[in-house]
């Protein structure tokens, strides 16, 4: 009774959507985010609908399954402008070509009103590694160390880039659906605290249409503004990007608003310098393009993997989103094939040390 009232109330708000973006779909999702019926969420935990927009690579499919399973119930998936990459027996997967917002709204309605069952997990309900049984607390190993508590090992120590302290590096694969990354980019990153120690490109970004012109520049500016905490200004930039002509006055007003936010000072000078231009320069060049002028393109002389190490996370995200996707793809050479790369990674990554304090012996042995 009360629960039904709660659901009815929930239906009157916008649909919380998390977007997994594929090829040629970034601009479309940006436009969709302006629809009042939709509220695009950065975290899948805050969403009820997973929107898969645009075709994905075959190898992204397992990551999509992982992302899908992270959404809280009740949940549903909508495929937009692509064939369904996942198969579920019940309920049937929804696929749509044109009006995504209307479809999302109707799926959400049937989901909340319980006409449509919540989608089950796509992965088996088992921990990532076997762990139960051994050890005092069932952590899966003997003594203090070893084992995989709750199916995951603990971090081991390693040297830090900045001050050489030996603390725990955290290594993980980030992406390909991380909203702060360009769509499709998958990196293997080692962090110490919040500073990137080591990065390796596993998959380059997916190509996106509309790479030049004022609208594309405004969309890129919007991504930067969101990183600076200026979500309203970012939405305004996207709105300007979605209209055709006659946006010069709007761009001027937006630029003044952004200037007053202190964003010029918020980006550290000299950050992410590539081909003689830093993040500030690249942002300024986008503003030029957005106001209808032309800016000279500079060829990148560094790759992403030697640009990122040593950067703190928020700085790294500013750098990562300061390139257009074509340029960034040029900075992400993948020499080895994906399957080969997996065995090579261990050699490239900084050597992890053992937990028990015999680091010197370990190094001597290596």
């Amino acid at each position, binding site marked *: 009774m009360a629960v039904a009232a709660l659901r009815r109330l929930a239906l009157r708000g916008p649909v919380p959507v998390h977007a997994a973006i594929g090829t040629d779909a970034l601009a479309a999702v940006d436009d969709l985010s302006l629809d009042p019926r939709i509220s695009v969420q950065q975290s899948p935990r805050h969403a009820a609908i997973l929107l898969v927009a645009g075709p994905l690579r075959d190898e992204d499919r397992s990551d999509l399954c992982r992302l899908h399973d992270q959404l809280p119930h009740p949940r549903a998936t909508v495929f937009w402008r692509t064939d369904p990459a996942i198969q579920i027996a019940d309920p049937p997967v929804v696929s749509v070509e044109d009006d995504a917002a209307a479809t999302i709204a109707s799926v959400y309605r049937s989901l909340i009103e319980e006409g449509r069952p919540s989608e089950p997990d796509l992965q088996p309900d088992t921990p990532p590694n076997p762990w139960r049984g051994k050890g005092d607390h069932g952590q899966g190993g003997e003594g203090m160390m070893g084992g995989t508590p709750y199916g995951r090992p603990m*971090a081991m120590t390693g040297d830090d880039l900045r001050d050489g302290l030996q603390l725990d590096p955290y290594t993980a694969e980030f992406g390909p659906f991380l909203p702060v990354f360009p769509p499709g980019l998958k990196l293997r990153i080692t962090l110490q605290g919040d500073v990137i120690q080591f990065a390796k490109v596993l998959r380059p970004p997916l190509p996106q249409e509309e790479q030049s012109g004022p609208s594309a520049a405004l969309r890129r500016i919007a991504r930067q503004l969101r990183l600076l905490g200026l979500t309203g200004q970012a939405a305004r930039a996207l709105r300007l990007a979605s209209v055709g002509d006659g946006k010069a006055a709007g761009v001027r007003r937006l630029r003044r608003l952004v200037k007053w936010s202190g964003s010029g000072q918020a980006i550290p000078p000299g950050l992410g310098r590539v081909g003689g231009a830093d993040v500030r320069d690249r942002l300024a060049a986008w503003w030029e393009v957005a106001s209808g002028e032309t800016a000279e393109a500079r060829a990148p002389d560094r790759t992403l993997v030697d640009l990122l190490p040593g950067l*703190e996370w928020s700085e790294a995200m500013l750098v990562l989103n300061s390139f257009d996707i074509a340029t960034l793809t040029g900075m992400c050479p993948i020499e080895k094939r994906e399957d080969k790369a997996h065995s090579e990674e261990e050699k490239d990554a900084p050597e992890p040390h053992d937990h028990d304090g015999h680091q010197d012996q370990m190094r001597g042995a290596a």
Partner: protein
Amino acid sequence: MTALAGATIAGTAAALVALAVFLIGRKAAHVPTTDPQKVPLLGGGAPETHAWQRYHVRYYSMTLLFIAFEMEMMFMYPWAVVFVKEGAKAMVEMGMFLAILSIGILYGWREGIFKWQ
């Protein structure tokens, strides 16, 4: 009622409101979390280890300076109450104290403790 009782009741009542939110949520949508749902968010990627680690706190040297200022607060509370009575003497005392601590800030700045080490 004493002030302490008033504060305690206000704080406890607010905590109960927050607990009520959890209770309503449990009533409305209680579904146990499965193992694949529990995987930490990495935009589709998977972690190799637990996130809990000996985290490299980059600002650790700043916290030492912070403690110096926190101790200064101890002195400041009683000082604020007697300031008008004591007049110029209190002013000079606090001025000296702040000056010494400011030198600490300058020294820390020179040593780069406000940077992410």
